[in-house]
């Protein structure tokens, strides 16, 4: 990457009361939005704290725009930090919260308050100026916290699940408001996300973590369509995973014996025939239409027993069982017309949409 805004070079940390972080390299480009996804508090949490300057890595360096700032305190870095819970100062008004965050060059208090008020007005929050944080709705508090962080015009904004307390229904509007703020004060963003869908929708790149290490760092499309491992597939969203055994290769695809029959798919790792593998595909890639058995692109065609239908707004989630396995199929919601899901149903997946990974070794 040319001219990264933030570079974490071989950083790692093992400290009491913190999730461990194995050595990794990560760069965030100018204006780029990188989302970090993990289950619970793990390595991404530690990584974010290292970038913010709250922790010093055991090894590795933290580089901002070519300058090594590993040993500099948080206030001396071109970053701003928004933690879970937002950390607005309870005894100060919204206006004062913002005034604290303005650049130090604006020394006079009255001038700082005027600038803060102007900033609030520009983003339609002037009505909140004299309110205390504990009187704000979660969405309002999140907008104020983001605005406070951006008020100092940081080069990199570090977000630690800042939208966690906001109602799910208001998240999209909140994201739009955040985008508008970023247009006003352009900066790179390194965000630990709590929702994979938001990460895929808003980030330029997504980093997936499991325990102390980075599993995959890639664009949202590649993360979704070509996960590096079964764990990465599940972290990024729902996936149907089946155990199997590799039979061999056939015309560029691998053949795997699974509980739903023989499956053809793309082999993502070097695996010897006979080895245990995991076959995976996304629920929306499963076709309910009758596919021709001779179709060269077909990965697998099988019949499954319908179990239940769950409406999820724009999509509908259909659950089937086959060969003792539970499979989920996701389709766009189109009402109940033509729905014939009772009993056995024919399902098909294209071979290009099937990933095959080596089965994870069980700890002895």
């Amino acid at each position, binding site marked *: 990457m040319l001219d990264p805004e933030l570079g974490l070079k071989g950083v790692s940390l093992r400290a*009491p*009361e*913190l999730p461990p972080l194995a050595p990794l390299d990560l760069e965030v480009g100018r204006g780029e939005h990188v989302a970090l996804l993990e289950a619970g508090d793990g390595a991404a949490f530690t990584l974010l704290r290292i970038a*913010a*300057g*709250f922790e010093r890595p055991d090894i590795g360096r933290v580089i901002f725009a070519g300058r090594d700032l590993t040993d500099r*305190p*948080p*206030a001396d870095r071109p*970053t*701003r*930090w*928004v*933690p*879970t*819970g937002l*950390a607005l*100062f*309870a*005894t*100060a008004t919204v206006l004062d919260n913002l005034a*604290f*965050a303005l650049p*130090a060059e604006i020394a006079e208090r009255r001038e700082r308050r005027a600038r803060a008020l102007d900033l609030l007005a520009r983003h339609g929050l002037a009505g909140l100026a004299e309110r205390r944080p*504990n009187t704000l709705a979660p969405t309002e508090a999140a907008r104020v916290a983001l605005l*406070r962080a951006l008020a*100092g015009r940081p080069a990199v904004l570090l977000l630690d699940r800042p939208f966690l307390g906001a109602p799910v229904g208001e998240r999209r509007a909140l994201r739009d408001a955040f985008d508008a703020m970023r247009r006003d004060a352009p900066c790179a963003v390194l965000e630990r996300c709590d929702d994979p869908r938001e990460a895929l929708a808003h980030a330029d790149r997504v980093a997936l973590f499991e325990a102390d290490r980075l599993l995959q760092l890639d664009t949202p499309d590649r993360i979704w369509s070509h996960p590096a491992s079964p764990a990465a597939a599940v972290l990024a969203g729902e996936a149907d995973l089946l155990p199997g055994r590799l039979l061999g290769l056939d015309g560029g695809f691998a053949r795997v014996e699974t509980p739903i029959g023989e499956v053809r798919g793309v082999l993502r790792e070097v695996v010897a025939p006979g080895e245990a593998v995991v076959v995976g595909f996304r629920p929306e890639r499963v076709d309910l239409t009758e596919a021709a058995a001779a179709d060269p692109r077909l990965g697998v065609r099988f019949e499954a027993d319908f179990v239940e239908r769950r409406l999820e707004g724009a999509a509908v989630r259909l659950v089937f069982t086959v060969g003792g396995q539970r499979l989920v199929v996701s389709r766009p919601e189109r009402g109940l017309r033509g729905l014939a899901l009772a009993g056995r149903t024919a399902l098909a997946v294209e071979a290009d949409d099937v990933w095959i990974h080596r089965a994870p070794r069980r700890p002895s």
Partner: protein
Amino acid sequence: MTRAPRPPTLAVRIASAFTALVALTLFSALVVRSTETWITADPVTTHRLLDLLAERRSLIRAWETAGLGEARFALDAEIRATGAHIAELDATMPPPRRVHGLAPWRSLLADLPHIAPIVVELAGETCLSLAVAFAFGVALTRLGPRARFVVLTLAIAPLGLPPPLWASAFVRLAAVFGLPPSDRLADVAEIFVGMPFALILGWVATRRIDPRRLEAARDLGLSIRERIVHVSLPAVAPGFAIAGVVVFARLLDDLAIARLIGASDAGHRFGAWMRHRIVAGVDFPTAAAGALLAGVVAVAIAAPLVGLAVRSATPPPTVAPRWPWAERGRPIGPALIWLTPFVLIAAIIGVVALQAAVAGFDLRAERFVVATEELLRAGLAGLLAFLAAIALVLAFDPAEPNRRRAAAAVLAAAAALPAPTVAFAVRLFADDLGVEAGAWIATLAAAVAAVGLPAALLLLGRAPREPAGSVAPPARREALLRRLVPLAPLAAVLAVVRALAAADLGTIVGLVDRTALFDRPAALADPAAAVGIVSALAIGLVGAWATERARTGGV
């Protein structure tokens, strides 16, 4: 649409009714007695009786300090003879006539001009105790865990010392610096008596400082002053407010320290004033009026602080604390400056105790036995207070937030009541029931005096703004345990030290002869003093552990 408040649960109703009944009973006992005047049928005989009672008390004191042998034998004979005279007069004297009126209050009026300066002085001492504790707390933040444990042990240990022993050690320390006993020295001693309470409550309150807010403040480049004003102080203010209430009550009800260290006026402290009314003058009605007045003053001063604490108490953060200060490895350093008095006192007590151990003392000595009994009684009172606090918290915990908050306010206000007020009310109620004043009544009085603080601490451990129904019923018990378990050891320690501090009110309850632990020791090597030293060591160690656990646990 506003939701109608739910009716209180059965447990809340029972707990409220029980608390109200106890409060009403004790209050009524004081009110009724404070309006009584006893007119003796035979003033000459009454005065003769009072003289004999005073004479017997002085003989008993002389007997306690006399050596074995002839002198003690002679004193014993005199005590018996005086007792026989008293019994004879008591049997022949016609009973006094009881009338109701405001005469005791009029008699109290004469003392009122003295009370205002005392209250102001105590308020000043309370503020200084809080200030010293705050400075001490700031020094604690600079220490690693081990050094902090040592410092907390030394700072909390004086709470386990009976007041006279503390006073003796303090006088010796002052003498090392050439300072004679005086009023000012007594004031300094009082400041250090209240400080450990403030330190414990203030230090535990730091658990409410949200580390994320501190980090955000560092990230924004706020100065240390701004961080304290906008992050730390709002979080610890409720703890310091409750500490102010407790320290003021402790100083108000002190019976011994000021007098022993050299305060010139016997009525310098409320406890001493009341003991004088009861023990020396047998002036129960004026004492009852004084007890009521002291209670009202204490609650009036405590009310705004309690209001502040209960309204502004925020839930502890749900993230593990990542303190910006060192968690490991710092030497004891600057805290030693603040620790100096405690270290010196500990050294003095330690040296004297060592001398006593080398010389050997008799474990069967009467003063040792009596002191041990008194310590056990204080421990029992603390245990009763702790169990009562747990019961109250279990009853009020599932209540609506407003009722829970009100209960916490009432219990915190109860912690503000001077122990002699509570003890005297218990004694009067026992008198009305015809129960003889004795060890059990003293234990009960100490327990009642000690229940408010641990109960308020445990109840305030709950977030007042936690939305109703936010915790699903199956998880409620688990959530309750997670909140209570870290605070419970500290609540138990506070109950015991409050009971121990209030144990010298045995004289008010009627145990004039049982003061081995709460009389000034003849020497620090006194067998009774040894009991106090052991209790101080235990309270210091357990208190430091419990304080740290309360500060860091439950996250």
